[in-house]
């Protein structure tokens, strides 16, 4: 059986849409903006129609073209004349526009044919039929009405699992932002029925905010500044205090919310009055606030008492009071009702969404009677809409033009929305079958848009989802960077230095970025130790010494005003101007000291020391590789390496003959030569290194998968899927550091699984038997013996500790390597 499932709370000031889905209720969020609620307000701006929050913008300026509170006129002959479109709009037409907008909240793949719409308990037959008509006008094929207090009771009953076996009387107390309603509902084991209702259309929570401003904030300001008449001035159109009035209302609203939770709240005023700044704060106690709103609250209590009295009931015959509407968060309300009626007051359901929630429960139980035939018909229309779109896909501007030509007689309007919720054009009329619209873009992001094409009744005929504009990445004008610009940093895990990309190849100049690093070594004021900021132009995946150093700063202990302590923050700001000047600004937080340098390509800073150091590092690697390949009789390859080795040594000798203050260009020639040699070495070895890393990655993955196949804990499996999610990306990156990081993640998970169960240590123990390089063989033998015993006894807990003991006896290669990563070969940045 297909059920209706969708429900709409079509409210006087706000509306919501919800869906019943297999026992749970989803209340949809407005895709533009963040709220679940849509203000029931429409602005007509000539060729543009704005529905919801943004329609309120025009309230002051263009009130005659704004339609709101039309629910109060449902079922009457009254219409709203809208000058900007020269048309009479009926409350039914206006309500249908709100319903259509709510349909937009639902994902496009859902089809909405049937819906439950809520109405106030006070609606008569004509008003109810008018609501139904609005539903049909909005494109629904089936509309079922439900009274709001009933929906609230359903929300309460379904969320609290209340069972009612005999007849009971409940009261639904609905105190919203602008209206107040109270309903008496009769509940028994079969049905819910509204027996009576009363209300005031001009009493709401907004009155509380105004009272806080008028009676508390304004007198405080007046006293401090010796002003009079401020309250009147705030609300007057002729004074300049309009903005201040809004600001104070916001402050009051915040204070009201705070006072629902705390006994007092601090109101901080930082405002400008008559061009003077006023900065003061004061405390509002809950007591004072409650005194202020008490008369309004008492008014609502009288309504409850009246409704009970009118129905010849006694207070004791009321079983419970259910609170809905945003204003019921105020504790005084709950307290006063309890005192006055003496029954359980329930505020367990969310007061804003309760009606939509209850209506959705109802929709989930109500069979839908319309078939799906209509849907196919609509699809045909959608496919027949022909259109062409024009726009820049990449831009550096913060605004771009989207132009379209639509070849369809049915399409009359369009609407553009940015998917992140930051922009909505509103519904606009096509001009001669086309439109051109400037859309704002979010900086540095891929801005995705959704474009709707609508007919004259504002039904969506076609939705275009493919429009995306990339802000900031590319531009036809402007110079792109020919190479990555990187910074050399320490790679403590691998005991070497590596490049970290700062600006990617192809980025458009000028560029500026701040990088935050920590000091990887301590530099004492008296020490010879130094901090190296080396900015390199070249492939970020290559060795640091293979790139061109375009900016180099050494900060020595003697330059420091205080010791630089390992682990403290270093802030580095890099800027490459359009004329390719490089500005480096280093700030050492611990020393509160700043170093500024500007480099331009024509005056490269090169240190002979640095050349020497780099050659030494690479030489070691080259020689090790030559030995390895000689032993594998791979002579052709080792011959290529040998050429590089000789070149490096020659460069080193030449470098030793010049001094740092040499003014000739010898230094630069040597640096060039060094770079070329190291690049050759890089090219020769990179693929091999990557292949090796990938091999290791696969090995780690295989062992982990083997372990996972025996593992019952789902948590590990989830973690595994998360790690390998972007596997392809990482492998194809050709970046050994990324692959290395992945291997580390896999290995960590592997060890976590092993450690989660003592039994996993069996295979570990057996594997250790093949090791020969224990630092203390006698102790290892003893542990093996104990291990065998533990195995026999199936005492895996002890076995685990024995494995730990044995592992500690194995040499730590990593530690050794780290020891060799000497202080003077480091940059000091990590």
């Amino acid at each position, binding site marked *: 059986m297909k059920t209706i499932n969708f429900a709409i709370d079509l409210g006087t000031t706000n509306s919501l849409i919800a869906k019943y889905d297999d026992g749970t209720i989803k209340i949809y969020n407005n895709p533009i903006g963040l709220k679940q609620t849509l203000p029931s307000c429409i602005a007509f701006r000539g060729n543009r129609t704005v529905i919801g929050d943004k329609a309120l913008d025009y309230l*002051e300026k263009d009130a005659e073209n704004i339609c709101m509170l039309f629910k109060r006129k449902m079922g009457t002959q009254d219409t709203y004349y809208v000058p900007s479109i020269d048309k009479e709009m009926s409350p039914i037409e206006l309500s249908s526009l709100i319903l259509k907008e709510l349909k937009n909240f639902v994902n496009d793949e859902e089809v909405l044919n049937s819906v439950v719409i809520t109405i106030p308990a006070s609606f008569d037959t004509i008003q109810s039929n008018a609501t139904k008509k609005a539903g049909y006008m909005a494109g629904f094929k089936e509309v079922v009405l439900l009274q709001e207090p009933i929906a609230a009771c359903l929300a309460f009953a379904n969320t609290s699992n209340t069972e009612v076996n005999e007849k009971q009387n409940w009261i639904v107390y609905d105190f919203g932002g602008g209206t107040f309603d109270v309903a008496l509902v009769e509940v028994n084991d079969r049905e819910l029925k509204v027996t009576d209702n009363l209300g005031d259309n001009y009493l709401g929570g907004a009155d509380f905010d105004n009272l806080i401003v008028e009676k508390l904030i304004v007198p405080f300001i007046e006293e401090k500044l010796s002003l009079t008449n401020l309250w009147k001035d705030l609300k007057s159109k002729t004074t300049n205090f309009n903005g201040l009035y809004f600001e104070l209302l916001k402050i009051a609203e915040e204070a009201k919310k705070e006072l629902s939770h705390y006994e007092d709240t601090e109101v901080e005023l930082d405002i400008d009055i008559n061009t003077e700044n006023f900065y003061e704060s004061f405390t509002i106690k809950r007591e004072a606030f409650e005194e202020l709103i008490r008369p309004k609250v008492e008014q609502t209590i009288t309504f409850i008492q009246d409704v009970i009295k009118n129905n010849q009931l006694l207070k004791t015959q009321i079983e419970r009071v259910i609170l809905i509407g945003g204003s019921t968060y105020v504790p005084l309300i709950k307290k006063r009702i309890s005192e006055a009626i003496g029954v359980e007051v329930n505020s367990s359901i969310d007061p804003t969404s309760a009606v939509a929630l209850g209506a959705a429960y109802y929709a989930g139980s109500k069979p839908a009677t319309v078939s799906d035939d209509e849907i196919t018909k609509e699809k045909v229309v959608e496919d027949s809409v022909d259109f062409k779109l024009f726009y820049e896909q990449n831009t550096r501007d913060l605004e771009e033009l989207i132009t379209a030509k639509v070849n369809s007689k049915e399409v009359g309007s369009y609407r553009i929305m940015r998917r992140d919720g930051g922009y909505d054009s509103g519904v606009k009329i096509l001009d001669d079958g086309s439109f051109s619209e400037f859309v704002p873009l979010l900086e540095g*992001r891929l801005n995705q848009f959704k474009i709707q094409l609508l007919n004259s009744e504002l039904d969506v005929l076609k939705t275009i989802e493919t429009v995306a504009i990339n802000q900031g990445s590319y531009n036809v004008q402007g110079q792109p960077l020919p190479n990555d610009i990187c910074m050399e940093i320490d790679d403590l895990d691998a005991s070497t230095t590596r490049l970290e990309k700062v600006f990617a190849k192809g980025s458009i100049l000028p560029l500026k970025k*701040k990088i935050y690093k920590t000091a990887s070594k301590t530099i004492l004021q008296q020490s010879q130790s130094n901090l190296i900021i080396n900015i390199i132009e070249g492939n970020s995946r290559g060795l640091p010494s293979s790139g061109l150093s375009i900016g180099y700063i050494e900060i020595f202990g003697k330059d420091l005003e205080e010791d630089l302590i390992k682990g403290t923050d270093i802030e580095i700001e890099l800027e490459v101007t359009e004329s390719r000047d490089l500005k480096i600004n280093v700030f050492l937080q611990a020393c509160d000291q700043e170093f500024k340098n500007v480099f331009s390509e024509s005056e490269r800073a090169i240190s002979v020391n640095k050349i020497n150091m780099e050659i030494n590092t690479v030489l070691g690697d080259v020689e090790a590789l030559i030995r390895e390949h000689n032993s594998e009789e791979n002579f052709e390859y080792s011959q290529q390496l040998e050429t590089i080795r000789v070149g490096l040594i020659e460069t080193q000798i030449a470098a030793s003959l010049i001094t740092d203050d040499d003014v000739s260009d010898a230094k630069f020639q040597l640096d060039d030569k060094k770079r070329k040699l190291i690049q050759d070495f890089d090219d020769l070895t990179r693929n091999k290194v990557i292949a090796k890393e990938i091999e290791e990655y696969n090995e780690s993955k295989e062992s982990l998968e083997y372990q996972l196949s025996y593992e019952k804990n789902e948590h590990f499996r989830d973690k595994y899927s998360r790690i390998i999610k972007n596997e392809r990306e990482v492998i194809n990156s050709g970046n050994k550091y990324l692959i290395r990081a992945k291997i580390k993640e896999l290995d960590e998970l592997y060890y976590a699984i092993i450690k989660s169960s003592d039994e996993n240590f069996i295979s570990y123990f057996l594997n250790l038997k093949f090791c020969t390089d224990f630092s203390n063989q006698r102790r290892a033998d003893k542990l093996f013996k104990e291990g065998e015993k533990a195995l026999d006894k199936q005492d895996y807990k002890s076995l685990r500790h024995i494995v730990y003991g044995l592992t500690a006896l194995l040499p730590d290669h990593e530690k050794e390597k780290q020891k060799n990563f000497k202080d003077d070969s480091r940059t000091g940045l990590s």
Partner: protein
Amino acid sequence: MTEIINQVFALDLKMKKDNNDSLNRYVDRIYHEFEAMGFQIVNPIGQAYRNEMTDVEANIIGDLSRKSKITKVLKPVIYQVENNETRLLQKGIVIVE
């Protein structure tokens, strides 16, 4: 998290108002951390206001026209970037004149 961002933003505004730039570095660093966590914070001060901007809640003083500008930002616009998808997390609260 939005509350923390709002407080830092308020602190930043207060310092700028008092012409106090001695702590800028630290505030910038905090903003940087927010960005690293996937928050994009936008201060629309001085921008021309268009009704189509659904990322701000505008309190409009006087008549809304093409010349209307955002003259005060009480809360910044906050977007959240997750898996390369951007979504609005908090609307800015602004005064438009």
